[in-house]
C-alpha cells in the first residue's frame, strides 16, 4: 500500500506547476495546490463546522450530564513497555536460593552410595551442586515450587521417594539390593499401618517379579496424585536420584510445549503413517541433554555406529561432537537424536532416565495440522512417539532405566482415556476384584488406550505426620517459619493442609504468613 502512495506522489511531483512553469498554464487537469507529499493543507484547513440544530432531549434513563474532567487531553501512556520476552522470562525465572534464609546445620547432601537407601525416609536432603546444575539444565525446577524460599535446594525424602529409589535399584539390576529394599519396605509397612498395604504390596510384587527376571530392567511408572501433592517434585527427585547415580537423564520438562504448535515442525520423510519432527525443539533438547549429563559426555569413547546424517562425520567423533552437530544444525537434529539414542542403548552404557511432566497434554491431538488440515495426533510427533514407545513398553531400555511420567492436576486437558487407564491401574494395584469399565457413551481415543494398557502408577498421597514434622522443622531451621514446632502445631498444619498435602503444607506454613 505505501508503495502505491509513493508512486502516485511522485507522479504529482512531476506535474507540479512550480517545477514546470511552461506547461503550467496549459495544464487542463485540476492540479493539486500543494506538493503531493505535503499534508499541511489538510491539517491547517479550517475545521468543518459542527452540525448544529436542535438536539433531541436525551431519552429517559440516558445520562446526559457529563461532568468528567480531562476529556480533551487524553493521557498517552508513556511508560516503558517491557521488552519482548521479558515478561515471559520473569514468569519462568527460577530462583534457587534465598540469601536471607538461614543455613540449616544438619542438612546433608544426597550421595551416590547412600542416595537409594531406605534410611533416608523422613529426612530432608540437600541436592549436590552439580545435580542442581543438571536439574536446572533439564528444567526440572518449576517456578511454582518454593525453591526460592530457602538457602539452597533440598528435598524431603518421603515414602514415595523411597519407593522410587527402590525401583531405581531394580532398574540398575541390583538383585540383592532389590530384595533388601522389598524387605525394608515390609518393615516400613508394619510401622506405617495397614492403609498402604495394598498399594505397596502391588509395588512389591512387581519388584520381586522384576528381580527374578533379569539384572537390568525398564521400569515404567506414571506419577499420579492430588493437586499440589508433589508429583512434579517426585519427578524431580527421581531425576535427582538418577543424576546422583550417574544415569543419563533425558527430560521433557513440559509436554505442553511440544504439542501446542509453538515450535516448527516438518514431516519426517519416508515415514508411514506420516510422522513429524520438531527440529528446533529437538536441537534444544539435545543441548539440554548435553548440559545436564556433562559427566557422561565428557568421558565417552568415540561413537561406534555410523549414522547417516547427511553431513560428513570426522573420524573418531565423540558423542559430544555428535550432539553438537545436532545442536548446530537443527535440520538434522532428529537424526542426531536417533543416532545418540542408538549410542546410548549400546551395551555397557549407563541406565537411562526418561521423564516427562504434564502427561495428559500428549494423550490427545496436538495443535499441529497436517498438510490436508487434519489435526495431528500427539503420538505422531517423533519425540513423543519415542517417549511413548518406552512408556508403553513397546521398546525397552537394554541398559536398564526408568520411564517416569507425571500428570498435572492444574494444567491438564481432559483425557478420558488417561483418566480411565489410571483408575484401572490403581484398581489393579489395590488388588480390587472389580476393575472400572469404560463408559461406552464416551468417545475413546484408541491409541491412548493401547499405549496405557498395562501402565503402573505411583500414587502420591499426603505426608505422614512424621514426614510433615521433619519438613516443618526444616522450615523452622531455615528461619522461614517462626513458631514453636510441637505436636499440636504440626498436627494443625497437617490437618489444614488436607491430611498432609505437601504443597498446601508449604503454603500454610511458610508462604502465607499472617
Amino acid at each position, binding site marked *: 500500500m505505501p508503495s502505491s502512495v509513493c508512486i502516485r506522489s511522485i507522479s504529482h511531483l512531476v506535474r507540479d506547476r512550480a517545477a514546470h512553469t511552461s506547461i503550467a498554464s496549459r495544464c487542463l487537469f485540476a492540479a493539486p495546490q500543494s506538493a503531493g507529499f505535503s499534508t499541511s493543507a489538510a491539517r491547517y484547513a479550517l475545521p468543518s463546522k459542527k452540525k448544529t440544530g436542535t438536539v433531541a*432531549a*436525551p431519552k*429517559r*434513563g*440516558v*445520562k*446526559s*450530564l457529563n461532568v468528567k474532567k480531562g476529556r480533551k487531553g487524553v493521557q498517552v501512556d508513556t511508560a516503558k513497555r517491557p521488552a519482548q520476552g521479558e515478561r515471559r522470562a520473569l514468569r519462568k525465572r527460577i530462583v534457587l536460593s534465598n540469601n536471607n534464609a538461614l543455613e540449616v546445620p544438619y542438612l546433608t547432601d544426597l550421595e551416590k552410595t547412600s542416595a537409594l537407601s531406605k534410611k533416608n525416609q523422613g529426612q530432608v536432603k540437600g541436592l549436590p551442586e552439580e545435580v542442581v546444575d543438571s536439574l536446572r539444565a533439564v528444567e526440572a525446577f518449576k517456578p511454582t515450587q518454593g525453591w526460592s524460599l530457602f538457602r539452597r535446594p533440598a528435598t524431603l525424602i518421603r515414602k514415595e521417594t523411597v519407593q522410587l529409589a527402590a525401583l531405581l535399584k531394580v532398574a540398575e539390576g541390583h538383585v540383592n539390593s532389590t530384595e533388601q529394599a522389598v524387605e525394608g519396605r515390609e518393615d516400613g509397612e508394619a510401622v506405617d499401618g495397614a492403609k498402604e498395604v495394598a498399594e505397596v504390596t502391588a509395588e512389591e510384587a512387581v519388584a520381586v517379579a522384576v528381580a527374578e527376571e533379569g539384572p537390568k530392567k525398564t521400569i515404567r511408572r506414571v506419577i499420579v496424585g*492430588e*493437586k*499440589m501433592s508433589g508429583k512434579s517434585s517426585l519427578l524431580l527427585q527421581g531425576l535427582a536420584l538418577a543424576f546422583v547415580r550417574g544415569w543419563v537423564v533425558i527430560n521433557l520438562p513440559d509436554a505442553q510445549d511440544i504439542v501446542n504448535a509453538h515450535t516448527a515442525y516438518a514431516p519426517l520423510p519416508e515415514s508411514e503413517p506420516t510422522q513429524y519432527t520438531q527440529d528446533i525443539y529437538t536441537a534444544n533438547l539435545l543441548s539440554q541433554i548435553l548440559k545436564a549429563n556433562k559427566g557422561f559426555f565428557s568421558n565417552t569413547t568415540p561413537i561406534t555406529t555410523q549414522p547417516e546424517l547427511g553431513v560428513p562425520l570426522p573420524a573418531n567423533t565423540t558423542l559430544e561432537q555428535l550432539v553438537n552437530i545436532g545442536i548446530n544444525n537443527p535440520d538434522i537434529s532428529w537424526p542426531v537424536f536417533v543416532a545418540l539414542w542408538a549410542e546410548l542403548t549400546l551395551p555397557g552404557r549407563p541406565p537411562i532416565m526418561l521423564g516427562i511432566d504434564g502427561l495428559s497434554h500428549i494423550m490427545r491431538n496436538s495443535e499441529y495440522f497436517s498438510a490436508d488440515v487434519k489435526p495431528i495426533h500427539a503420538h505422531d510427533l517423533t519425540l513423543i512417539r519415542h517417549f511413548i514407545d518406552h512408556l508403553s513398553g513397546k521398546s525397552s531400555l537394554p541398559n536398564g532405566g526408568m520411564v517416569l511420567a507425571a500428570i498435572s492436576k492444574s494444567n491438564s486437558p481432559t483425557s478420558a482415556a488417561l483418566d480411565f487407564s489410571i483408575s484401572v491401574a490403581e484398581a489393579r494395584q489395590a488388588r480390587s476384584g472389580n476393575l472400572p469399565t469404560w463408559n461406552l457413551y464416551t468417545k475413546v481415543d484408541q491409541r491412548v488406550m493401547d499405549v496405557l494398557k498395562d501402565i503402573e502408577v505411583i500414587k502420591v498421597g*499426603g505426608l505422614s*505426620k512424621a514426614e510433615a514434622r521433619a519438613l516443618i522443622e526444616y522450615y523452622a531451621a531455615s528461619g522461614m517459619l517462626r513458631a514453636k514446632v510441637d*505436636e*499440636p502445631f504440626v*498436627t*494443625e498444619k*497437617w*490437618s*489444614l*493442609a*488436607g*491430611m498432609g*498435602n505437601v504443597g*498446601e503444607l508449604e*503454603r*500454610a506454613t511458610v508462604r*502465607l504468613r499472617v
Partner: protein
Amino acid sequence: MPRGELPRCLRRAVDSLSTLPRPQCDQTIRQARRSLQPSTSRCLLSTTTSPSSSLVNNNSSNSSFERFTAAPEIRFETQDDTNKGGQGGKINLRTLRIVPASPSYFSAKPTFTDDFINLTALLRTVATLPVVTPAEAPKVAWRTVDQYRIMTNEPVKTQRFHKMLHVLRRLNCIHPTLMPKQVSDAMLRYKKAAQPGDIKPPPGIIDQAGRAKGVGRRKTSSAVAWIVEGEGEVLINGKSLAQFFGRLHDRESAMWALKATQRLDKYNVWALVTGGGVTGQAEALTLAVAKALLVHEPALKPALRRAGCITRDPRKVERKKPGHVKARKMPTWVKR
C-alpha cells in the same frame, strides 16, 4: 366485658332463684369458669354478700380481694312470707335487682380493670418476699398488647397494659424458690403459650461407632458433620479439606471449633455440605462441627461460645424491592 357475660349473669341470677341449694349451683359455675381462665380470680359474688357463705371464705383465702359492699341480699323467705297464698311461691321478677359479677362492670374495660386490681392486690400481699434482680429472674415471654386485647376483647390502652406488665415483672422477680403457687398461677394468664426454653432439643448422642452428629447453617448453606475421635483427618463431601476449600482462610474457619479448643488432633471429621458459596459452606461447617463437638464434650460450650461457634449468624441476602434496583438502591435520578 366479653360477649355473653351479661346474659350469663342474668341466667345465673334466674337460676339462683329457681334452683336450690344455691351455693352448689354457684360452685359449679365457678368451677367451669375457673377451668376456662385458670388464674382469673375475679370476684364472682353475684348477689351473695354474706360472710357465712363458705364459698366466699374460700375465695378470699385464695386471693385476698378488697371487700366491697354490694346490694343487700334478697330475702326470699320474707318475700315468700309476704306473698304467701297470693302468688304461690312465684317470684316477683320486678323486685329482683341484677347485680353484675364484677364491681368493674360499669367501667369501660371491666376485665382489664379486674386483672389490674387483682394483680396489684396480689403484689401487695407478696411484696415482702425476697426478690432477685430482673436480670436473674426467669425469662418470660409475656403476651403482647394485641394478644391481650384479643383475649379480653377490650380496647386496652398500651400504656395501661405496660403498667400492668410492670406489676407482672415485679411479681416475676420474687425469688424463684419462694415463689408462691398463687402468684405463679396468676401470672400464667399473662404468659404466652410458648415460653423461651420450652422446646429443648433432644440431647445429642454418640452412636455405637463413636460418631456424634451436628448440623449448622449459614447464609444459604447447610452442613452436617459427624465427628469421631481420631487424629485430625477431615473429609468434606468426600474430598479432603485442601481439595474442598482453596482458601486457607476457609479451611481455618471450617475447622475453627476444633482449632479454637485445641482439639484438631483429637477428632476426625466427616461432613456433608450443600448450598450457598464457599464462605457460607465453611461457616456452616463451623457450626456443625461445634455442635458435634459439644456432644462429645459438653463442657466446651463456654469456650466455643467465646470462639463464636455457637450462635448462628442470621444475616441473609436482603430481598429486592419493587421500585428499587437492588434491595435498597434506587434508580439514578434523571432530570427529564
